[in-house]
């Protein structure tokens, strides 16, 4: 277990509720892992533990050699290496697109403004949205906002990108523009852990699919195996429901 992200026997409780049960997951550098499973199975909880948006109660989480504990400076240094994209975009509404992208590089990496803006424009071009740099998030469509959110995370040059259902809040016609950007990112070699129910994306991009139910990882397979012959009954049921749509 020496990937860039390692979870060993991780448990997490919300009060009495056992949200993560003995979760083991090791993600190698450059690997793309898709996490799926029914609603409430602990997918968000698991990936939010990786950048300490949630605290785990037992077990170990090590990101690029740094174990997550209460040590604030370690938490901050892990967060600097791990980018995250949320279902709800979470762009800062009072800042323009460009300000959203340059905020953290300027404050955290102490980049001069010009340099930060240059890098921001480069990433905006990569997510095909450079012409919107001076707009506010509310002036963009959902798909555009999510691409800005991806560019914002990339501006920090992360080693790992976490995605928590990045297309679930989007109108259907905008899903593919976001998935295309994520696919490009995968092709460029980014390490990605992605919670999604977009099975087409999982099939074409994932190295591994992790299936969770009830706080546990109950199946880990290659996409080919997972779709052709799910090992567990619960995964079969889940796939039946998802693919029925």
């Amino acid at each position, binding site marked *: 277990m020496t990937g860039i992200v390692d979870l060993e026997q991780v448990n997490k409780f919300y009060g009495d509720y056992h949200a993560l049960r003995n979760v083991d997951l090791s993600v190698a550098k450059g690997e793309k892992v898709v996490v799926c499973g029914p609603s409430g199975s602990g997918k968000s909880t698991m990936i939010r533990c990786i*950048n*300490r*948006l949630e605290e785990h109660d037992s077990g170990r989480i090590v990101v690029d050699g740094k174990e997550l504990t209460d040590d604030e400076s370690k938490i*901050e*240094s892990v*967060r*600097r290496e*791990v*980018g*995250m994209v*949320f279902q*709800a975009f*979470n*762009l*800062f*509404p*009072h*800042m*323009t697109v460009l300000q959203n992208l340059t*905020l*953290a590089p300027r*404050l*955290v990496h102490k980049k001069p403004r010009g340099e930060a803006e240059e890098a921001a424009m480069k990433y905006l071009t990569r997510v095909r949205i450079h012409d919107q740099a001076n707009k*506010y*998030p*509310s*002036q963009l469509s959902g798909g555009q906002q999510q691409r800005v*959110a991806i560019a*914002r*995370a990339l501006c*920090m040059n992360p080693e790992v990108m976490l995605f928590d259902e990045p297309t679930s809040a989007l109108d259907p016609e905008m899903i593919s523009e976001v998935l295309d950007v994520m696919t490009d990112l995968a092709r460029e070699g980014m390490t990605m852990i992605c919670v999604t129910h977009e099975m087409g994306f999982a099939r074409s991009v994932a190295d591994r699919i992790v299936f969770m139910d009830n706080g546990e990882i109950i199946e880990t397979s290659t996409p080919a195996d997972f779709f052709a012959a799910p090992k567990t009954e619960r995964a079969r049921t889940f796939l039946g429901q998802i693919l029925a749509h």
Partner: protein
Amino acid sequence: MSFDFALIATSLPKILQGLGLTLNLLVVSTLLGLLLAVGILLMRLSQHAWLVWPAKAYIYFFRGTPLLVQLFIIYYGLPQFGLLRHSFLWPLLREPYWCSVIALALNTAAYVSEILRGGVLGVDKGLIEAGKALGLTKFQRASRITTPLAVRLALPAYSNEIVSMLKSTALASTVTLMEMTGVARTIVADTFAPYEIFIAATIIYLVLVWFIQTAFTLIEGYANRHVRKG
């Protein structure tokens, strides 16, 4: 009894002599109150019960008692304490002006800290998480995300509080200050025409409120420019 329009016109300039003091009380106590409110807010939002509890007690006391009573306690009550009469605060507490400023500031601080707290609680948690995920420190998240958004959310209620403060400055007339209401009351004592004189005062207060509201409409429009579609 006849209504004397000319008296309104002639008393307007006299009452306006109190305008400077009214605005002075408003501005000084609003600014002091805002500073104090931020301190109380930080205590109220703290994780430590020993900071939260005094902040809650403060807010309960100053929101739960009439401002006039608070003013009287400061003006008539505090000088009873020999200790205070010999303290460095005495030169202030002896002055009706400073008693009024202190009462107004202490009172508004309680309301404003709650107004600001409403703003802070209204900030989308997801945005704070986005700030964390980007590696911003706690201070950077507070200064770049929480504060600007909380202030925007608090502006409408804060503008009401300023209007309310303007009206509260009239209470300073009860401790002999010659702000606008104080001036109006002396004119009434001379002319025995309370109706006309207080209507004149009313007109001036309404004009001031119009300025305050217009200013806040402009500020809110500017602060919320990002909300507009286009």
